[in-house]
C-alpha cells in the first residue's frame, strides 16, 4: 500500500501526462487519417471494375499508392517524413511532430478498411438507388456510407487501436505518451515498475476504446 502511494506520488503525474499525450496523438491522427482515407476508400470502390464509374487507371494507381504506403515500416516513415512534418506543423518534435507521420501511415490503411466496409454493401441496394435516379455522389453518400456505417465505426476503433500501438514509436521524436514511457523507463533504465504501470494503462485504454467502438456500432446498426 505504502509502495503504491509513494509510486503514484513519484510517477502519477508522468503517467497521467502519458495517457493524455497518447490519447491526443492517437485521436487527432485517427481523425485526419479518415479525412484522407475515406476519399481513398470511396475512390477505390467507385473506380473498381464493377463500380459506378469503372476506371482501371485511377484504380490501379490508387491501389499502388495504398500498398506502398502500407509496406513502409512506421519507424522509417517517421524519420523520412521529418522535413515534410516540419513543413506542415512547423516542428518535427513532440505530439504535433508525431501526428503527421501517424496520419500518413494510417491513411492508406484506412483507405483499405473503408473500401472493405463499402464493398459489404448489398449491390441490390446500389441498383435500387440507381433505379430511382440517384447520381453517383448520392449513391456514395446515401447508400454506401450510410448503409455501411456500423462497419465503418468498427473500422474506426481498429484504426484507433493500431495507431495507439504505432504511437509508442513516436517517442523517437520526443512525442511522449505511454509507449514512450514504457520504453524509456523500462527498457532503457530498468525501472520495471513504471514500465508495468504504463503497459497496464495501455491495456485498459485499448479495452475501453474497443468496447466503446463495439457498443456504438451495435447501437447504430438497425439490422438485427
Amino acid at each position, binding site marked *: 500500500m505504502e509502495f503504491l502511494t509513494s509510486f503514484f506520488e513519484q510517477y502519477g503525474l508522468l503517467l497521467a501526462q502519458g495517457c493524455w499525450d497518447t490519447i491526443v496523438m492517437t485521436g487527432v491522427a485517427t481523425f485526419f487519417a479518415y479525412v484522407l482515407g475515406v476519399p481513398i476508400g470511396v475512390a477505390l470502390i467507385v473506380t473498381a471494375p464493377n463500380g459506378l464509374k469503372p476506371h482501371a487507371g485511377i484504380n490501379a494507381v490508387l491501389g499502388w499508392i495504398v500498398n506502398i504506403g502500407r509496406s513502409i515500416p512506421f519507424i522509417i516513415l517517421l524519420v523520412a517524413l521529418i522535413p515534410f512534418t516540419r513543413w506542415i506543423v512547423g516542428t518535427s518534435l513532440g505530439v504535433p511532430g508525431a501526428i503527421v507521420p501517424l496520419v500518413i501511415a494510417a491513411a492508406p490503411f484506412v483507405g483499405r478498411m473503408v473500401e472493405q466496409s463499402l464493398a459489404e454493401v448489398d449491390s*441490390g441496394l446500389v*441498383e435500387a438507388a440507381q*433505379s430511382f*435516379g*440517384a*447520381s453517383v455522389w448520392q449513391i456514395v453518400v446515401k447508400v454506401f456510407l*450510410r448503409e455501411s456505417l456500423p462497419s465503418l465505426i468498427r473500422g474506426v476503433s481498429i484504426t484507433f487501436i493500431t495507431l495507439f500501438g504505432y504511437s509508442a514509436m513516436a517517442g523517437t521524436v520526443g512525442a511522449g505518451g505511454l509507449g514512450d514511457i514504457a520504453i524509456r523507463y523500462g527498457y532503457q533504465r530498468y525501472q520495471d515498475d513504471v514500465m508495468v504501470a504504463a503497459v497496464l494503462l495501455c491495456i485498459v485504454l485499448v479495452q475501453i476504446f474497443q468496447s466503446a467502438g463495439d457498443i456504438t456500432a451495435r447501437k447504430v446498426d*438497425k*439490422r438485427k
Partner: protein
Amino acid sequence: MGRHHALRDVSLSINDGDIFGIIGASGAGKSTLVRCINLLERPTSGSITIDGNEITHLDGKDLLDLRASIGMIFQNFSLFQQRTVLQNVTFPLELRKGKREDAEARALELLEMVGIEDKANRYPSELSGGQQQRVAIARALANRPKIMLCDEATSALDTRTTVSILELLQNINKTLGVTMVVITHSLAVAQRICNRVAVIDEGKIVEEGNTAEVFANPQSDVTRELIMHDMLSSSSASFFEAAKAAGYSAPVVEGEVK
C-alpha cells in the same frame, strides 16, 4: 471471351395501362430486358421509346430523370437496412430537391395506401417479407411514376403473401393507371394479374399475346414446356399434400420438380 448476346431481336410493345408479363426460365434474359426499360442496362443496338421519346441515348441528368420517372421493385425488396420504413419511402424524393415535410407527408400517404402506415418508424429488419415488399412498392410509387417494373417481386414470398401483393399491384394499376411490367418465372403469377404476356427464351421473344390466349393455345415449344412444368410442380405438390393428409408416412421427397 466471345461475344454473347444476352438479348437479341427483341421487339415488344407495351400499352398504357397494361400489366405486361415477361415470363421465362431463369437465365432467359428477363431481368436484362426489364433493365433496358430504365437503362440500368444499355442495349448495344436497337431503340426503346417511351411515350414516343427515344430513350436509348439519354445521358447525364436526362438519364437520372428518366429513371426517377419509372418505379421499380425487386425480388429481395432491396430496402435500405439503416433507414426506417418512412425514410425508405422518402428516399426517391430526397434525391430531388424538395421540402422534407412534403416528402414525409407523401410517404405517409403511400404507406397508408399499401396498408402499413403503422410501421412507418420501424426498420426493414423488423418486418415480414410481405410487409417489406409493401414498403418497396410505396417507395417505387413515391415519384408518381407512370411505369412500374416488377422484377420477380413475389418470388421470395409464400403463396398467401404472393396473392396479397399481386392484389395490391393490380389495385395500383387500376386506381393509379400505372403501367406494369412484371418479370416472373411463375405462370401462376402471370395468369393471375397480366393482361398480356411475352415468353422469352435464350434472349429471344418466342411468343407474345393476350394472357388467356397464350396459355390456352401456346404456339411455341418453350411455352408448352413452361406450362408442363407448372402443371407438374403444382400437381405433384398437391399429391404430396394429399398423401400427407391421408396419413402416409412413406419417405416422400418434397421439393420442386425441375
